[in-house]
Every structure is written in structure tokens, then in C-alpha cells.
């Protein structure tokens, strides 16, 4: 009798915890979504409305009319996809050398590589700006992609090296006995085995690059190369008439920025979790 009561309390407390957890995570997202579908004049009411009163798409329309939305979206897409591809490709090559070709100092290079994650991004902006100006890399896709893929490289190498070490040597040996050279070995043996890990890191790096603010903010100063994150920040910090904030546009643009990412998360949840946590458990 007593045990049953205890168990009931236990389950009740647990359910309470889970509900609070779900509520606090989902609510801000719900709030942004609700605001984006609410007409502007209804956003500024006291008390605020907790449910759809008038459903409208006019915020999105106003948004598309006031900033080059498609342009920014395409820029974000190129920036994120390019950085994702370059970072995974470079990390894959380097990880293979670090994990497989036992050269003197391989471990040192690996640790130096991973530790370079600690060099603060914001501390290097000034010299980078100087170099980028001198080499005409400002406001170019490749300039931004170079910066971004380098930023996520250490983490990618950190995840890929242990993964490569797990692959049994015998597979490569068999291929070498059959006469495979390094390019064939890469293309026909290693790449297929690594495909899940590489895809995982590509998705994670895509999300990180899509969300990135600092590099595009500093190095994409013309409208032609701005990303969604920069567009969002410009809307958020620019002074508007009357001192208020354009919440209608901000929430709509936020939704545009979140939705592709949410789709990726829902589709590849398992892969993303395994990639993010692989570093934590050996």
C-alpha cells in the first residue's frame, strides 16, 4: 500500500518535471511562431494574446517587401552548404593522416589541432579583416566559406579521428594486397565506411554555419552577400520610428531562419545526437 503510494508520487513528480521541461523549451519557439502569424496591431496589446486570434501571413509579405529575403536565404544556403562541404572534406583528409599514417608527431598535431578550438574567434577579427581587405576577400562567398569551415574544423577532426581508428586495419590491408593505391583506397574502401560519420558532421556543420553571425556580420558588408543572420540582426538593432522594435518582421524572419533547421533536426535527430556526443564518450 505504502509502496504503491510512493510509486505514484514518484511518477507524478517525474511527469511534472517532464512537463516543465517541455514547456520551457517549446514555449519561446511557440511564441515566435504565434507572433509571426499575428497582425502587427495585435502584437502590442496588454495583456498579450496566448493563442491565434487573427491568423495572417501579412508579416511575411511585409518582410519580403522590406528586405531582399530570397537573396539572404540563398546566401545563407551557399554559405552553410559550402562551409559544411569544405570543412568535412578537409577534416576527412587530415583525420586519415592523423589516425592511420603513423608519422612522428601525429599525436602532437592532433592535440594542437583540437586545442586550436580555444583561440577566440573575436580576437582574430582585426588581423583577418586586414588580410581580407588586402586580398579582396571581403564580400565574397569563398572568403566567408574559408573562415567558417576553418572555425568548425577542430571539432570535426576531433570526432572523425576516433571514428577512423575504430575501422579495422585488415580491410585496408586486403585492399592493398589486391593492388589498391591510396586514391582507390579512399574512394572505394574508406569513404563508404565513413559515409555515416561524414554525413553526420556535414549536417552538424551545416546547422552551425547557418546559425553563424559573427563572420558574415564582419566580412559580408554589402547587401549582395549578407546572410539571414545578418539581416535579422540589422532589423533587430536598427532604430525605428517611435523607438519600438519591428516584432512583426523579426518574428517572421526568425521563422524563415528556424524552419530549415528544424526540418533537419527532425529528420536527422539520431545522427546529430550521435555526432554531438561522440566526443564525450571516447
Amino acid at each position, binding site marked *: 500500500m505504502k509502496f504503491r503510494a510512493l510509486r505514484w508520487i514518484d511518477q507524478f513528480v517525474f511527469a511534472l518535471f517532464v512537463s516543465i521541461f517541455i514547456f520551457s523549451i517549446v514555449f519561446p519557439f511557440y511564441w515566435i511562431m504565434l507572433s509571426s502569424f499575428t497582425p502587427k496591431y495585435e502584437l502590442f496589446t496588454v495583456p*498579450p494574446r496566448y493563442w491565434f486570434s487573427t491568423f495572417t501571413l501579412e508579416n511575411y509579405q511585409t518582410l519580403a517587401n522590406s528586405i531582399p529575403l530570397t537573396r539572404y536565404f540563398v546566401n545563407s544556403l551557399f554559405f552553410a552548404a559550402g562551409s559544411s562541404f569544405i570543412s568535412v572534406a578537409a577534416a576527412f583528409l587530415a583525420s586519415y593522416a592523423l589516425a592511420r599514417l603513423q608519422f612522428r608527431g601525429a599525436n602532437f598535431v592532433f592535440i594542437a589541432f583540437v586545442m586550436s578550438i580555444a583561440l577566440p574567434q*573575436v580576437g*582574430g577579427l582585426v588581423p583577418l579583416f586586414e588580410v581580407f581587405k588586402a586580398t579582396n576577400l571581403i564580400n565574397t562567398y569563398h572568403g566567408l566559406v574559408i573562415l567558417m569551415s576553418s572555425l568548425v574544423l577542430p571539432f570535426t577532426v576531433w570526432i572523425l579521428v576516433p571514428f577512423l581508428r575504430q575501422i579495422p586495419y585488415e580491410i585496408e590491408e586486403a585492399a592493398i594486397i589486391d593492388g589498391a593505391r591510396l586514391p582507390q583506397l579512399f574512394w572505394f574502401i574508406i569513404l563508404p565506411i565513413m559515409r555515416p560519420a561524414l554525413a553526420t558532421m556535414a549536417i552538424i556543420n551545416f546547422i552551425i554555419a547557418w546559425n553563424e553571425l559573427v563572420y558574415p556580420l564582419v566580412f559580408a558588408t554589402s547587401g549582395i552577400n549578407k546572410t539571414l543572420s545578418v539581416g535579422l540582426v540589422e532589423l533587430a538593432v536598427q532604430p525605428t520610428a517611435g523607438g519600438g522594435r519591428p516584432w512583426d518582421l523579426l*518574428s517572421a524572419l526568425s521563422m524563415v531562419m528556424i524552419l530549415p533547421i528544424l526540418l533537419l533536426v527532425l529528420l536527422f535527430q539520431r545522427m546529430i545526437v550521435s555526432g554531438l556526443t561522440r566526443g*564525450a564518450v571516447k
Partner: protein
Amino acid sequence: MSSPSIPASTARAVRFRLTQRMRRSVLIIAALLLPAVALRLFTAVYPFLNTIWLSFHDWNPAFPPKQFVGFKNFQALTRDIAVTSSIDFTVLFVVLSTVLQIILGLVIALILNRVFPGRGLVRAINLIPWAIPMVVAAIGFRWMYDVQYGIINDLLHRLIGVRVPWLIDFWGARIAVIATNTWKSAPFVGLVLLAALQGVPQDLYEAGKVDGTNRISAFFYITLPLIMPQIVTIGLFMVVWQLAAFDLVFVMTGGGPGFATQVLAYRIYQVAFTALNFGYASAISMILFITVGIASVTGLLLFRKVEVSL
């Protein structure tokens, strides 16, 4: 997964020949490492070294050339209230955020580690704050913290009848920024700690039960010591990472009111790209480098101590 067609001795011989050949082909190794190393040297190591060099110069790109000024920038640092107060809040922001993220992360990990209906969905939901851009989180919460139209004040008003001038008030703004930062990253920490929890062998709990542990003592005497290495690792990672981040503060409060929520990283950005004082910005960066350096070295030493292998 050994291939049965190759005898072990042959395999050994091949492996020997393979390593021999590879060892000689420095070219291959260099070619494989080149893209990654070049990227890191160009965008991280070189700027780092150059910033140290620049910090001893007076340099405004609008008025070239650079001038060597010795320690002038550093002397100015000590008298700059914008910098000293931003150090204050940076420390508070990073330490408090990280501690809260670890505590809440542990709670989240413990929740997600239990078996209950809908766990898969809840785990997916847990990824949302990590996946949402910091910029969006900052904007969303700024809207929610709005004094007049914000949802948080409305809820507070309904529940306990008060309204807090969140982002206008010194401590209100600080609390709001730290809370938002915690919201953004606690689930990620929880994810990492969940992976750590899953690595704890179940028979330890069985053994503990025999010795008379209940759920709470099992947590403190079995779970916590075993996942301590991962807690330390993720904690230091969060410290180093959050020291350098400024997008949240930039969008949510702009460092205000006054300098209440100013962080070093944002100050560096402002001095460099609003005031165009490149030399002085580099000097402020040095504070950041030293702090990150201390945190990283501590991390490495602890890393050795707790014997986590990569």
C-alpha cells in the same frame, strides 16, 4: 573483422610494408594535412599572433600608418571603465551560465535517461535550443522580456502581481541575459551528459542496491563520480566557448543598460568595428587570450588527471 583469406603472418608483413611505405611518403601525409592545417594557420593562428603584435600599436585604419606605442594601450585598459566593468560581467556571465547549464544539464540527462512513453519525442525537443540560432533566441527572449508587452511580465503579473523592468534594470538585464544563455545551452550539456550516463555500467547500481543505496545516494556515490570527467570536460568547453561569444548580448541588450551586460568579446567588436580603434581592440583581446589560456591549461591538466582519453 579479419579477412580469413590472409594468414596473420602475411598481414603483419603487409602492415609493416604499409607503414614503411607511408613513413617514407612524407609527401602524402603533407598533402592530406595541408588543407586543414593551412585553414587553421590562416584563420586562427596567424590572426592570434598578429593580434599580439597589434596590441602594441596605435592603429586606426582611417588614419594610417600604424604607430608603435609600447604598453600605452595596456595602460589605457586599466583606466577604461567600459573594459573593467565588462570584465566584471564576463566573469559572472561565464561562470554562472556554466554552473547553471551543468546543473540543469544533469537534470535533463537524468530525465532523458529514464524510460517513459514519448521519450524519443522529448529527446528531439531537447535539440531545439541547440539548433535555434543564438540570434533568434536573443530576439525571441528580448520580446518575451519586454516590460509592457512581454509574456514574462504578464505571467508574473498574473501569478504574483509584480512587473519587473527586466532589460532596463541593472540586475534585471543581467539575470535575463544569463537565463537566456542557460536556456540556449543547458539542453546541449544535457545531451553530452546523457551520453556519459549511458556509459555507466548498470551492474554498479545492482551492487549498490545490495549495499543499501537508495536512488539519491546512488546518484551521489556512483553516478556523479563516474561521470565527473565528462562534467569537467564539457564545463571547460562551455567556459572557453562562452568567453568568446557575444551574439547574445549584442542582440538582446547591446551591453546595456549602461555597461550592465557588457562582455569583453562584445567590447572588442565595438572598439574594433564601430570605433575603428584596431590597436586598442587588440589590447583588449589580450585579456581574452590570457583568460582562455588559463582555462585551457587548467583543462589540459585536469584532463590528464581524470584520465579521459580522446
